[in-house]
Every structure is written in C-alpha cells, then in structure tokens.
C-alpha cells in the first residue's frame, strides 16, 4: 500500500489552565497524550470515546485550531505542525470539518448558496461563474434543490442543514473531511439519510473521512478502521471487522455493550458491562492504566504500570495488561 494520506505521530496537546491564585502552580490539562495514527486515502477512520476522551482535540489539532504541544502531523506532503499562519491559511482547503450541531454551525444571516460558496471565495478557487456552477453541482450532490440556494438556514430542517454543511465541506475539494459527531443532533430517521449520503459521497468521490462519534453502531456503519480513545490516549485500534467481531479492550467492550439495540431486547441490559462513575480528570491522569479505576477486570498491578500499546494481530493493537491472559 502507498503512503497514508494522514499520519499523526505521538501527538500531545496540553492546555495550561489558568489559576485564580497567581502564586499557585498552574495546572496542565492533558487533553491528548501521545496519539499516533495513520489514515490511507479513501478510507474512513472511526474515532470513538466518551466526552473528554480527546477525540475532538485530535481533530482540531489536524486543523491547527489548537496548538500542538508535541509530535507531528503529516497530511499529504505537508508537515501541518510546522506551517506558518500564512501557509496554513492556504492549506485550509485541504481539510474540511463537519460539525455536530447543524443549527449553530451555519450563519443565520447568510443564504445557503453563499454559505456553500464561501470556501471557494476565501480560497479564491475559480472565477465567479465556475464557483456558481460548483455550488449548483454540490447542492445536487447532497440532495438539495439548486433553487434552495437563495434560502436562509432557518428555512431548512436539521437534516437539510447538515446537508448544507456537507456541501460546504465538499466545496474546496478537500483531501480529508473531519466529521465530528455529524448525526448526533439528528433524529434517527434523518440520521440514516445523512449516513447514507456520506457513504455515497465517499464511494463516488474517494473521500477520506475522520469520523468522530461516541455511537458504536454509527461507527460500525461508517468506518473501515476503528480507534478507541480514553482520557487522551488510544486504547485500541483495529480494522472494522476485527473490532466489531472481537473487541479486546475492556473499555471497547463497555462502549459496545452500552448501545441499546432492538434485536437484543430487554435481556441485553442484564449482560451489560456498566461502567461506574465518570472518567478521571485529565489534569492529573492516574498513574498506571488510565482506565483502571473504572475497569471491571483491573488487577492491583494495573494501577501502577502504564500498559503499552501492543500488537495482538495484524493491524490490531490494544493497550491493556490483561488482554492476552483473558483470552479476549
């Protein structure tokens, strides 16, 4: 296989938290703490985890919307973390972002057509006529009628607004589209429409997605590969089939078992792995395995030693002391 489109090596994003007391030692939030991943062109990587696991911060680091504390991000032949602001602006067209909330991510005072055209204007792609033609083509591609270009965001439903967001993301012909919980705010029936649209676009245009979600069923539907994050670190990475047929990390198992499913019925809750409490604070992450405090199979040793990411099968890595002993 050729070189991956996106390659992140040992990425760390730490935020300094300001203290009210000027003499107190400042606290550091370890939002992302040593994440490495790669993504080949035309593939979809599903990034999963609870709120606060650092998945959105990884995505924002790729766009340099947060400062990169350590590590490297390579997109195509560009080292993203080394770009100057000016170079970065030119490069912005190659990564686009679809946000979770289709209501707050569109300017209510700008017409839908102008919203979709704005990346072309900002990046000065094409002339006036070709931009307009591109907007019409995009509206059709995402299932909107071209005459709806003249409408304002409030005149669209939530699902249609997400279609506008997708059209805007497609406009500059990006190499990578980051979808940050793109269907979490939508109704189930609309969710299916948007997921199908994203799949169709991927097939037709060979788009590469970084797909962030906490819903395992949605990730299973979208991703070729799955990366599970917990408290700023990757705990498991596997291809889709391997992950969903035999997940290995106890956190992955807990996430999977938490999804309510119509097929399993009421019996499912009995088999559920219920995690107690909330994840620990990323300000002072626990020594040892970060998941140990909530892990159903933790041993005393887990609290002391940080488990390394170990490869247990082809392309399948897990960060857990107990995995080979529990036998999966």
């Amino acid at each position, binding site marked *: 296989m050729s070189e991956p489109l996106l390659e992140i090596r040992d990425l760390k994003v730490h935020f300094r938290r300001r203290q009210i007391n000027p003499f107190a030692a400042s606290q550091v939030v370890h939002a992302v703490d040593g994440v490495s991943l790669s993504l080949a062109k035309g593939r979809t990587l599903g990034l999963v985890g609870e709120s606060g696991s650092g998945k959105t911060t990884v995505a924002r680091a790729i766009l340099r919307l947060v400062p990169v504390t350590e590590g490297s991000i390579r997109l195509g032949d560009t080292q993203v973390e080394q770009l100057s602001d000016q170079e970065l602006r030119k490069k912005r067209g190659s990564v686009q972002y679809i946000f979770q909330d289709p209501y707050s991510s569109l300017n209510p005072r700008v017409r839908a057509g102008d919203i979709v055209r704005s990346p072309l204007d900002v990046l000065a792609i094409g002339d006036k006529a070709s931009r307009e033609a591109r907007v019409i083509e995009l509206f059709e591609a995402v299932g909107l009628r071209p005459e709806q270009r003249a409408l304002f965001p409030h005149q669209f439903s939530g699902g249609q607004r997400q279609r506008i967001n997708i059209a805007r993301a497609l406009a500059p012909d990006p190499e990578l589209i980051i979808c940050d919980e793109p269907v979490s705010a939508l109704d*189930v029936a609309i969710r*299916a429409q948007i997921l199908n649209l994203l799949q169709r676009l991927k097939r037709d245009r060979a788009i590469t997605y970084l797909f962030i979600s906490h819903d395992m069923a949605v990730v*299973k539907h979208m991703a070729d590969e799955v990366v599970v994050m917990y408290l700023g670190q990757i705990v498991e990475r596997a291809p889709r089939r391997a992950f969903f047929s035999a997940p290995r990390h106890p956190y992955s198992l807990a*996430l999977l078992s938490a*999804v309510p*499913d119509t097929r*399993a019925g009421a019996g499912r809750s009995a088999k559920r792995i*219920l*995690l107690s409490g*909330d994840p620990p604070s990323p300000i002072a992450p626990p020594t040892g395995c970060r998941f140990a405090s909530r892990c159903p199979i933790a041993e005393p040793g887990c609290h002391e030693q940080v488990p390394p990411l170990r490869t247990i099968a082809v392309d399948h890595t897990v960060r857990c002391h107990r995995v080979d002993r529990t036998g999966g």
Partner: protein
Amino acid sequence: MSATPLLAVEELSVEFSSRGRAAHVLNSVTFNVRAGETLGIVGESGCGKSMTALAIMRLVPSPPGRISGGRIALNGEDMLPVSDARMRDIRGNRIAMIFQEPMTSLNPVFTVGSQIVEALHRHLGLSGETARRRGIELLKAVGIPLPDARFDEYPHQLSGGMRQRVMIAMAIACEPDLLIADEPTTALDVTVQAQIFDLLRSIQQRRGMGMILITHDMGVIAEMTDRVVVMYGGRVVENGATADVLAEPAHPYTRGLLACVPVLEMGDEDEPAELPEIAGVVPSIFDLQAGCPFADRCGVVVARCRAEMPPLVQFGDGHRVACWQREETRT
C-alpha cells in the same frame, strides 16, 4: 387488568393557533399507563411526543396552545378541570418530569441542594436539617458519590451525567406515582446513558411507580419499556406491548424507525451496507392535510390514505394500528 389505570389519556387534542390559523398538535391521543409499568412514546421531533408530556403536566404554553378536547385522568381523577393551584400540588408531587437537557433545567445560581429542598419544602413541608438530610439521602439514592459535599455545589461543578442524576433526585423527591422522562439521555454519552437507565429501572422497581419514557431511539424502547406508543403527526399510529410491536411492527412508520437504525451485530458484509431510510421529513403541523399524516413518506401508500385518516384498530392482544394497508389485508 385493574379497573382504573394510573394514568388514562383519552382522545386528547391540543390546538395551537398562529396568525389566525389553528393546527392540531395532538389529535385524539389515547393511551393508558398502569402502575409499575413503563410506557414508551417514540417518534421523530415534531410528532407530538413532548407535547403529550406537557399536556399531562398541564404545561402546554398558552397562548398559543390549548387543550381543545379529551380527558386526562390520574388514578381516576379528571385532571383537566382541576384548578391551577391544585395542579401545582400535583405537579412535582404525584407527577414528576425529567427533561432532556440537564444543564438548562437546573438553575445555575442555586446549589443543587437548595433546588432539591425546594420540592421537599413545597410539597412535604420539610425544612432545615430534616430537609437537608432527606436531600442528601436522595443524592445518595441516585448514586452520586460524596453526596454531603455535592449537596452544596452548583450545577456547573457537576458533569452531564451527575446533573441528570440530580434531576432524577428532584423528580423522585416526593415519591411520585408517575414519572415522565422526556429524552433523559439524549445529551449524554452512551456509557452514561446506560447508567441512567439502570438507575431509573431500579428506582421504578423499588417504588412501583409508573413511567413514561419519551425517546426517538427504538433501541431504548426495546430495552426499557413494557408497552409502546408510536406517534406521528400528532397522532398515535401504533401501540401495543413492546415485544409485539418489535416482533411484528404493523405501521410502515414503525417499520421504518426500526429499520433505519444501524445495528451492532457483525454481519457477513465487508463494506457497510446502505441503511434503509424513511425519505422526507416530518411535516409541519400547519401543513397537515386530510388523511394519514405519513402518506407522503410512506412506501405502501394507496389513494385512500390521502383522503381519509385510518382509525386506530385493534388486531392482536392490545396491539393497535392506524393504517389502511392493515385494514385492507384484514378484510
């Protein structure tokens, strides 16, 4: 079956008027909730689920809305003629509600303790140390660690899951007969959702209260409810025992809702398959025509659907559906 259900909603209609036009937000909604059971109400946004809950709480925003017909009875007592003052005694005491957004439904400038104590004071007359002790007990009952300390904290100091636990503590403070939970976990992570459902289930088993759970997720319905009401366009289009409805969904909308959810089970496919979708969107209540509100999105629509609303007809053991297709095959 006992003679009087805990809650009986009969032919409930709610009307909204805007710019001289009236629209039926709810249209002849009928269902029962028995003590100790969980009834699920499922449908997309704009189908009337939350409005049904608000009508039961007598909280329909008025104007522009008003309850234009029907009957709501709690333990046999008709609730609609009840005075506002008496309703305030019932609300939070015999019927309690948990809302979707735990951040906006707690007051940010008061401690969580004082917000729990408010209900204890208002309905049970508790105050001072007694109220505080009871409040801390409640926080403990909903699984909040260090309840003594949390009692004096403000909502912003708690996580989303903790806030929803506080909401539940407030809701069960007066041991209500009926708890209405309106999408209680939509804003939460799946892992926290599992915790909250586990908590609601154990509280219900302990206290034997009736519960209405509003959701748009069929998975939640499957897991949490005994019976289910499927709503569309302000009407009940199907209801019945959850197991029956899941095994044999009779309305095309119910079938659509069940089919369009991605499933976790790993099949044989290498590439993710296309999800079946329900085309189109929920119609605005001001655009509803005569006939079945689902006709425009329905895959099995016939001419009659656009002319006449099908009645809700029973065909199995308590399983009812409003669809002409079903009528045709039956006769």
